């Protein structure tokens, strides 16, 4: 397929305007690699890495070609052949899979952040990015002084007098755990108040997205998937507030299953994974009265940014909008191109920071044009990207997770 209908859809192409940026070009590069016409050079690697996996190409492809899968597969192939570059290999192979060690590294990064970097506006600071030490002056939120899982119990029951309607697991995700613990606390409180017993399994780890989707390290990814599947055991729901975690876990079966047993295990697990907004709307069927604006957002105009992993990967578009329209006390406004990629895409924004900035600047223009005071989203990854850009442009817009809007 070489029709090129993906051209105007691709956020990377839109900035680079070269064929290797777009799905059609990448597809041909992978074919060149498979046919032996191209070698696995650094140049080829870099071109395949220049993809946010936003899936907009697939959405616009008349033949439904799954370019993101091709890219992930090619990345995996690359890892098999030559490994991942230092220092990423240390991070992906040794640190991320081990939760406690990862926590220590994050904490050390947090200390370094306090010691070596001046305090920026609000709570944002210049900081070499936690995972890689290659933040290039990015302003991101500082590491929390208390991690989420140090602050909450393993089993969180509804308050006395509220009957237990459902029992659900909560995958906190690294960002919420280490950077936005208040979001996690709020989410747990909201759920328990609405009759959900929230279990935060202690043995859960990183979802594996940066490891297997970003870096193509399937072997390590499989270990992480096994750990998470075991951690959530027989819980019927695995709630995520992070769309990236959610889509990575839904896709375990697609990418990581290497035998029938894992195939079965991963598919069953994938079906349990649900984004918090979908859980509230489709499972709990909360009435609109349940959604009350938190005091600090009352009277504000709020717009919604569709995270790619939520919208195109997890297929959740309407639920967050339904919640936003239900929250009494705020005004929901739609921005133009709400589903365009923000350019974060994990390690992508580290490898290609300048490009990532150009992509997010278009998003910022949409947000500004919408006249919103707050841009809400459902993925801490996108939020960090948006915070960085908004801070860079010194705009009076706040970035919040949709759950933070609720009382």
């Amino acid at each position: 397929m070489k029709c090129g209908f993906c051209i105007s859809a691709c956020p990377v192409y839109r900035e680079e305007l070269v064929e290797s940026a777009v799905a059609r070009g990448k597809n041909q590069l992978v074919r060149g690699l498979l046919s032996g016409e191209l070698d696995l050079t650094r140049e080829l690697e870099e071109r395949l890495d220049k993809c946010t996996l936003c899936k907009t190409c697939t959405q616009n492809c008349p033949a439904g070609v799954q370019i993101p899968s091709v890219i992930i597969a090619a990345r995996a192939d690359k890892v098999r052949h030559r490994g991942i570059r230092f220092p990423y290999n240390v991070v992906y192979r040794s640190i991320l899979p081990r939760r406690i060690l990862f926590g220590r590294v994050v904490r050390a990064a947090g200390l370094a952040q306090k010691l070596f970097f001046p305090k920026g506006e609000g709570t944002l600071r210049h900081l070499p990015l936690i995972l890689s030490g290659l933040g290039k002056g990015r302003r991101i939120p500082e590491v929390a002084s208390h991690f989420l899982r140090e602050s909450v119990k393993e089993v969180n029951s509804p308050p006395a007098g509220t009957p237990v309607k459902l029992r659900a697991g909560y995958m906190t995700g690294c960002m919420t755990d280490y950077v936005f613990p208040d979001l996690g606390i709020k989410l747990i409180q909201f759920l328990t108040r609405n009759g959900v017993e929230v279990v935060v399994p202690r043995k859960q780890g990183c979802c594996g997205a940066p490891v297997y989707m970003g870096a193509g390290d399937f072997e390590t990814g499989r270990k992480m998937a096994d750990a998470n599947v075991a951690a959530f055991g027989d819980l019927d729901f695995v709630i995520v507030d992070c769309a990236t975690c959610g889509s990575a876990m839904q896709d375990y079966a697609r990418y990581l299953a290497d035998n029938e047993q894992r195939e079965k295990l991963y598919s069953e697990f994938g079906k349990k994974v649900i984004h918090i907004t979908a859980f509230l709307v489709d499972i709990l069927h909360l009435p609109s009265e349940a959604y009350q604006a938190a005091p600090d957002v009352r009277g504000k105009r709020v717009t919604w940014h569709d995270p790619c992993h939520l919208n195109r990967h997890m297929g959740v578009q309407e639920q967050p909008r339904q919640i936003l329209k239900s929250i009494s006390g705020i005004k929901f406004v739609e921005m133009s191109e709400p589903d365009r990629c923000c350019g974060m895409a994990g390690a992508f924004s580290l490898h290609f920071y300048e490009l990532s900035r150009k992509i997010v600047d278009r998003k910022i223009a949409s947000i500004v044009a919408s006249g919103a005071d707050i841009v809400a989203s459902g993925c801490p990854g996108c939020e960090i990207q948006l915070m960085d850009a908004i801070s860079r442009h010194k705009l009076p817009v706040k970035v919040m997770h949709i759950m933070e809007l609720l009382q």
Partner: protein
Amino acid sequence: MLDQAIARKLKSIVGEENLLLEKEDLLTYSYDATNIWIHMPDAVVLPRTTSQVSSVMKLANEYKIPVTPRGGGTNVSGGSIPIKGGIVLCTTRMNRILSINKATLVAEVETGVVMQEFNQILAQEGLFYPPDPQSAAGCTVGGTVAENASGPYGLKYGVTKQYLLGLEVVLANGDVARLGGITIKNRMGYELTTLFAGSEGTLGIITRITVKLLPLPRAQRTMLAVFDSTETAGEAVSRIIGRGILPAKIEFVDNWFLRRMEEITHLGLPVEAEALLLIQSDGDIESADREIQQIITICRDIGAREARAAADEIEANKLWQGRRSAFSAVYSSAPSVLSEDITVPRDKLPDLIKRCNEIGKKHGFPIHMVGHAGDGNLHPAVLTDIRDKENFSRASRVIEEMIEAALELGGVLSGEHGIGLEKQRFMARAMDPVALRIMKEIKHLLDPNGILNPGKYWEDRGVDHHRGEEIQGNRTFSQGS
């Protein structure tokens, strides 16, 4: 390989970031949207200004380096493939919309503006630019001028050349020419502007384009009509036009295409239909509704199994989305696809469909058909595999006979896809020899060294590489999808 000194000069003209020399980049400029030809360029330049284009052309002309212009690379004729190597001059980084004048209904754009984005911005002003090649999501405005492109809207609104008011073009020697102007009427000298419409990059590099616009129609209505035979569907088209009704679009889709489209899109298309007509009326609400009703009556009278308006906008969008997938539907069906673009006078469409079916039967090749029926423009496709010599040569014969049939019916080789590599072997047969001679003289006048998109348009055996095994030099033909 490009000479090092030339590479250095190119770099000094466009800057390092606008010059691609790595194999990994060159490969991505070795193809277009067809799946028969592939050829690697030696360099790709992505100029940002007209003066950079001019400098590149001066250099190329001095050293006689082939230059193949390219926009989005979505063309379906082989036209943007650098079949002689050399430089691909890609215009995608010249992508500013320079002006949209609502008072005069005129816009000026740089050549690399993506068609769909242009129309999205115009829509915010209540305007539109009608030429609608189905590749709008990827093709550039400059590319549509070079190909004189069109699509379903051709029926009511015409083709690209009818919207061209002015052009800025860079000639082979680097001279910059401004042709036409910004007025709707302009009777100064020869029509040089339209000369470049359909020139396929052989006469110059189009850098700026001035076009006229239309106000967006207030209402659009879609209908569908299901027929038990392709020929009856063709007759329905002739009868609609014959009654003096000119809807915005009349699209024809046969059963094979319908099934393939449904397979890849899952839109719920009426796959049981032997042939489907998809029709759109533009106007105000009353006139569009009235026109649709008239067409429904005509279709029923002629024996349509079903003829009805789309239930709502959602169904209408689905039907058109299905239609847009036709290209993918066919090109993803076989290792090699020969998709034709023959066009006959509108009233000869039923004859053309009939002849194509007969030719297919004779050679044992099913002919799959989709087309802009209202324009008499049919895209019959033959699925083959270029690696299977016997099969491929039989498929090529089918194509030849279909083209022959179209010409006999007073038609042309290509309605909108252009000549490129795909149709050059038929040019001498299809064109008046004097007209062909004038064309060659124009080409020689504007590009005496023959550096602009060489190897295209006319067949020049011995120097030319074309279809099939002859092009194995640099990179061979593609192996399908």
